[in-house]
């Protein structure tokens, strides 16, 4: 053990280590929304479906999406299950995640 000066005390760090930010990469951003497949991810709260579909309707007038794919999380406070993410990956080019209440 390293010799400590009497005026020093060691404290064990009780904090968690921040995740490595390098390991997360954003998907390439689309340059144009026209004709894309729009995904809607409802967080399962009341009225989340209402606001997401309203937003989709407004955007659809401008961008004429080729498809609007809707899906829902099983819990507002937990991440989507892997199969929901796989569905979105398979069926959508862009996704809007929304919260209602």
């Amino acid at each position, binding site marked *: 053990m*390293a010799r400590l000066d009497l005026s020093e005390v060691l*404290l064990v760090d009780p*904090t*968690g*280590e921040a995740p490595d930010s390098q390991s997360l990469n954003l998907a390439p951003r689309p340059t144009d929304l026209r004709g894309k497949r729009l995904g809607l991810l409802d967080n399962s709260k009341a009225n989340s479906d209402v606001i997401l579909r309203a937003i989709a309707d407004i955007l659809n007038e401008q961008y004429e999406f080729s498809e609007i794919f809707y899906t829902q999380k099983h819990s507002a406070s937990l991440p989507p299950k892997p199969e929901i993410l796989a569905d979105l990956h398979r069926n959508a080019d862009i996704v809007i995640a929304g919260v209602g209440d």
Partner: protein
Amino acid sequence: MTSLRTHVHSAPDPLDTIEECYRRGWTDGLPVVPPTPDRVSAMLDYVGLDRRRVLGEVPVRRRTLTAEQAAANVVMAGCLPEYFPIVLTTMQALFDHDPNCIHELSAVTNSTGVLILINGPIRQNIGLNCTDNLLSPGNRANSTIGRALRLILMNVFEQRPGILDRGCMGSTAKYSVCFGEDEENSPWTPFHVSRGFDPEDSTVTVASIQDPELIGNRYGIEGESVMDSIADAMASHGMATYFGRGIQWFWIVGHWHAESLARQGWERPAMQKYIQQEAWRSRAQLKRLGAIRGGIVPGDDAMRVFAAASPEDIHIIKAGGNSGMYSELIMNYYGVLATTLKIQESWS
């Protein structure tokens, strides 16, 4: 010992060392015991854990909990080494249930605390309060075990108010809700035995909870009067939004309520069934509140929405003092439903 992840603090004065913990943002607002290497090592040695051992990961936050981090927070909370197996088993229950539920505890805006209910011989070994004032400050084991869990959530998983803890009103239940069942004075089978454990097993039951509510029925002569008070509180409009979502309930039956009910022959299954049947609101009432969407249609007045889906969703525990006729009701928010594990003494 030097391999522990440490910071050098230049000040020999113990009070200033506590201030250093404040400066580093390591506390829950109350002073902490400085996590010096000797204290942290003693904690790890007690359970036989290597400091590098990863106890679990919260995938959605991509953060892990190591034995060293757990021990440092347990030291800071003021725990004795004998309490460490309880904190470790509590974390194990959360990781086993769904590691992302640890994130959920703070992501929800309704400010959930974590109930740590202890059964079995370990209660006496650590001097846990199971009777008078069991939810009050004043007993080291009750106060520091729950606090240790909170410090782990804050320091390791960043569940700090205003950052990842999104609680709206917050809760005093976030300091510590840890107590034992008063098995010695209970007329009924110990709670852990009712869940399949042996009487000599020491167990911890973990659940995400809302604030405990006092049930002050000091007037009921019949057992039904006491249980009607519980059922009425369960069916409270303030909680109606959770009905039908698989929530559970803890009824902490106070001494004289338990004595009265047992004298009249009430056993746990019959009480669970009675309360489950009485704790409801009509679908029409919930629609008027807005807790259920849509207009009222014929039949809604007669349609019952139950606060507990089944009798087994009402957990009955005998605990508390004998100075008056009281009980406590605790809603188990559906994030972490009651999970009971045997307390593991050795982790090597």
